């Protein structure tokens, strides 16, 4: 019952036009490999959900896959703007883009409600802000115990959630270390889940350290093995964030013509992510290799 599939087959089978799609991972473990395959397969009319659209959604929106964006922080971290997104939103250039906007905790709360089968999630945010006026889904909620009022956000249940992880079994049991973001909530909330892993490991590796399992195979429809699949994002302990690329993206995305050429060269002209990693070149990967810093071992004990 292996769920291992190629990225091409996984996207073809599990991501359809018009779907609500969440490629999650906060800065860490963003599956650009999945985003590029969605572009390559020319999906259309997607509703894209992420706390931080990041370059991956700037690229996907530029490629025309999306009609709507659900988000909480839309920038190039530490660099500036996501220009393709801004053109769509500020000038409907080349087409309008619908947006639905929350704060980070609001988005986390939405995935949490979605994962927990709750009709809403309560949080202490939004009071005094103009966000509720900009988004009618953010509503005040009086506490049943007294005079306090908090705010509520509705559940978010993507049709497909795509999460990158460091390692997974062929059944989809997935383990992550370093930043875990809201990948667990986004996966539990989804109707379908694609796990993209740096490494495929034996069941015994996962069972030797079950506290590291973020997503059980139970949820997972496909396991895609895509080493280096998060570039220019990163995988803790595997490769570094390519900050130079994030800085360079500003110049690329400012100019639609340059951006189109970049998509042609780095996405459409390539068959898959293996081509991408090869094209990027060994020197680049060498420059992104971290110094090893192993965790210790812990003893779970065997109890007979």
């Amino acid at each position, binding site marked *: 019952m292996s769920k291992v599939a190629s990225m091409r087959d996984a996207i073809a089978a599990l991501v359809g036009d018009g779907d609500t799609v969440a490629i999650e991972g906060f800065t860490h473990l963003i599956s650009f490999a999945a985003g590029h395959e969605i572009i390559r397969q020319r999906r259309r009319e997607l509703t894209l959900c992420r706390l931080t659209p990041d370059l991956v959604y700037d690229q996907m929106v530029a490629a025309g896959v999306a009609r709507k964006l659900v988000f909480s922080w839309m920038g190039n971290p530490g660099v500036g703007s996501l220009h393709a997104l801004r053109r769509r939103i500020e000038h409907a250039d080349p087409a309008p883009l619908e947006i639905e906007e929350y704060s980070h905790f609001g988005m986390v709360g939405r995935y*949490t409600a979605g994962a927990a*089968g709750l009709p809403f999630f309560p949080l202490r945010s939004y009071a005094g802000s103009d966000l509720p006026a900009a988004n009618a889904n953010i509503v005040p909620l009086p506490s049943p115990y007294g005079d306090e009022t908090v705010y509520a956000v509705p559940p978010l249940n993507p049709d497909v959630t795509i999460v990158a992880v460091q390692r997974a079994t062929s059944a989809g049991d997935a383990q992550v270390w370093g930043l875990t973001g809201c990948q*667990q909530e986004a996966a539990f909330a989804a109707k379908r889940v694609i796990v993209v892993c740096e490494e495929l490991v034996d*069941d015994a590796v*996962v069972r030797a350290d*079950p506290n590291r399992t973020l997503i059980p195979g139970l949820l997972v429809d496909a396991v895609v093995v895509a080493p280096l699949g998060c570039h220019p994002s990163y995988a803790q302990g595997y490769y570094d964030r390519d900050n130079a690329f994030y800085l360079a993206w500003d110049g690329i995305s400012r100019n639609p013509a340059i951006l189109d050429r970049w998509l042609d060269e780095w996405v459409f002209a390539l068959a898959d992510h293996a081509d991408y990693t090869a094209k990027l070149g060994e020197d680049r990967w060498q420059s992104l290799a971290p110094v090893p810093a192993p965790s210790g071992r812990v003893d*779970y004990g065997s*109890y007979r």
Partner: protein
Amino acid sequence: MSGWSETEMMVIAAARRLTTERVCFVGIGLPNIACALAKRTVNPGLELVYESGVYGADPVRLPLSIGDPTLASGASAVTGMFQLFAYYLQGGMVDVAFLGAAQIDPVGNINTTVIGDYAAPQVRLPGSGGACEIGINAGKLFVVMRQSARSFVPVVDFVTTTGHPPGGRPHGWGAGPTLVVTQLGVYEFTGGRMQVESIHPGVALDDVRAACGWDLAVPATVAETPPPTAPELAAVRDLDPDRTYLG
């Protein structure tokens, strides 16, 4: 009772029903051994979930509690109880939950809280644990319990876990209790009411009626529960060599 005990028959009859489910939420007590037996016999692929925060347990011994260290070692996932109850159970990942009960009534209401009046109990029972939310959020509920006129009652003293309310279960709830297994027989629910499905070998219908506090619905012909097979008996005894559960 030739060759096996009432409890062995009960546990084996319960385990036999876990053939098709994938994810089973394991309650404390008899469900613990029934689910372990099912995984070792009819359904090796069964994923065992425990409210203590374990998914995909692979216990090398039969745990006395549902928080035993052998449940964590070698499991697929160990998680906090918030995630277990919120994401696994309430999120709808559990196909079936196997629970015990002190009292049950004809519509499947379960009492594990109190015998007598809540404010002035004759017997104070452990209480809900996870049963109250399990009854609402699991895909369906299997119950394994000892049957007597004091445990099969017309109306439970306290509804810890809801069964089949008049008008049926609300949208969004699981199917609720669909199976009850006791030392005397196997029961299912039709139109939200319990009825006999089979009676264990060596048990007479009158024994079953005598051990029920209401006029039990009995079909024209009552099947006999197939007796335990030698492999089933070997497996259950191997699971509980000290007979902690089997008595």
